């Protein structure tokens, strides 16, 4: 409830301007734009399947050194000793297979990665990592 409605009314014009869903830039996709709320693929993702796209996010610490694989997360990957017993992958992630051996970017640095969008379940025979959506033949650009 508002205690001082007369002030609130005067404030209306000044406090508006809440940003809606935004893209990092016109040609970049945010990770969440690939999914619907129920974690099915969005029309945007289905429309871009097979295309080369740029996606913004963060590089989770790679599973192993000298890899050509990493996981893109929408927020810096957190491991919480007082809320989790182990690192838990969020649902909305993107598996990225790079063209060349990966140069690791710290997990707290925003990046943009560009590659060919692949949809559908795939288990990596080398790491066992199960993914539903991937970028293939990707390159990593700093944000």
């Amino acid at each position: 409830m508002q205690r001082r409605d007369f002030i609130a009314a005067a404030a209306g014009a000044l406090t508006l301007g809440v940003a809606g869903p935004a893209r990092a830039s016109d040609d970049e996709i945010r990770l969440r734009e690939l999914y619907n709320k129920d974690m099915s693929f969005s029309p945007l993702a289905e429309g871009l399947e097979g295309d080369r796209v740029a996606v913004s996010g963060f590089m989770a610490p790679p599973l192993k050194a000298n890899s050509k694989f990493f996981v893109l997360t929408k927020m810096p990957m957190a491991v919480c000793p007082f809320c989790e017993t182990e690192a838990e992958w969020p649902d909305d992630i993107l598996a990225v297979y790079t063209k060349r051996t990966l140069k690791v970017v710290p997990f707290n640095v925003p990046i943009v990665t560009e590659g060919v969008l692949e949809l559908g379940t795939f288990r990596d025979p080398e790491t066992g990592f199960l993914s539903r959506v991937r970028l293939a033949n990707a390159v990593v650009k700093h944000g």
Partner: protein
Amino acid sequence: MKSTICSALALTLAASVAHAQDLPQAQNAWFTAGQERIQAELAKQPNTNVAKNVILMISDGNGVGSNYATRVFAGQQDGGFGDDFIQHHETFPNLALVKTYNVNAQTPDSAGTGTAMMAGVKTKIGVIGIDEDVVRGDCSTLEGNTVKSMNEIAHDMGKATGIVSTARITHATPASAYSKSVDRNFEASVPEGCDTQTDIATQLIDAMEAGVIDVAMGGGMRNFHADEGGRREDGVNLIERAEGLGAHFAMDQASFEAAPLDGTPILGLFENSHMMYEADRTDEPSLAEMTEAAITALQASGGDNGFFLQVEAGRVDHANHATNAARMVRDGVAFAEAVAIADALTDDEDTLIVVTADHEHALAFNGYCGRGSNILGLCMDIDNEGIGHTGEALLGDDGKPYTVIGYLNGASSILREDMNWAGVRPDLTEEDATDIDYVQQALIPKSSETHSGEDVAVYAKGPYGHLFDGTIEQNVIFHVMHHAMTTEAM
């Protein structure tokens, strides 16, 4: 409404007092509102009824600072500046500040704090339902050191009891209602050789079988089975066991809505791990919906004996850990909605409602922001000619804008390993900062932002709510609830 009558009376009195003193500010809206508050305080009467029902509502990680952020956010969503908004629990007549430390931790965790609130004794960090004489993780130290929780005490009095959480139902805070565990992480199994306790999920179903817990709803399904996605190493299906005991099992919105609220035991496990953040929620009930269902079911089950219910907004904490204030405040709003429904469904004459947090986080607030600065966005300059901000973002000495909220540590640290842990603040726009996935800038790099030892508030209404006063130790929360529930009628 009694409060409306009081307000009208207060206005009359306030006007007369101000007139008598003939103060030049007597007609100022702030002045009359202040006078009105004084009259409301003078009209307060202690409620010394026996509390037939007690509801403890914990917003995990929602200290005074986090609560402030949610207040401003809720008010701005409502079209105002936000800072003068009043959340439902902020209407409660009784308030105290709470010291949350654990006996061996200046910075507490939810296991130690949950035990303090639910059993009346402070204990060590990371342990549940046991006192400080245990060694965390050492099962051999458990025996002789267990404590009894509010749910167990209420059950002994013939009351129905329940737990509701948006975290895993085996997570520290809800576990403090039914579990005795030397480690909060023993959610689905105990270490080899540990023969003094079972895992926390098993203890929940044991408590349901014993009739101690009538309603349990939250996340954490994986800890209850060994099928795909399950974590149980013993292969036991605890969900089938609960159903065998006559419990209704719910796992999505439809099965939640189908739950009989006639006193039938209810087990709701809506996610493998934690339930979704409110901002992302789909096909699972809100905290308010679960609270309403739990109260209705417990009223039926407890009858004239009443009930005890613990409600936890578990994900305020997790969003803070992620330095994602946008989700933190949205779960904070969902918590306030749960408080409102709990209040609406009960009577102050026989129900004590206690609203608090278990601990605060390492978040802080920048200045000097003009009014109406989006609590999730940039700190805008003060307008000396008006009330609302100027629309111009204030800049640090590095020439870059900054958000109202910041975190002292976390995964969104501005320090970079590849720069020898030096750092440069990224540039920032209002659009970036108010995005749902934006993580506020943090200083010290850590994979997860930490709790802090700062005080939290406790708000209360109903029988003996007036015993909350001043600055108290966290275990006193139990003692107020216990006194209100067990005292003789006066």
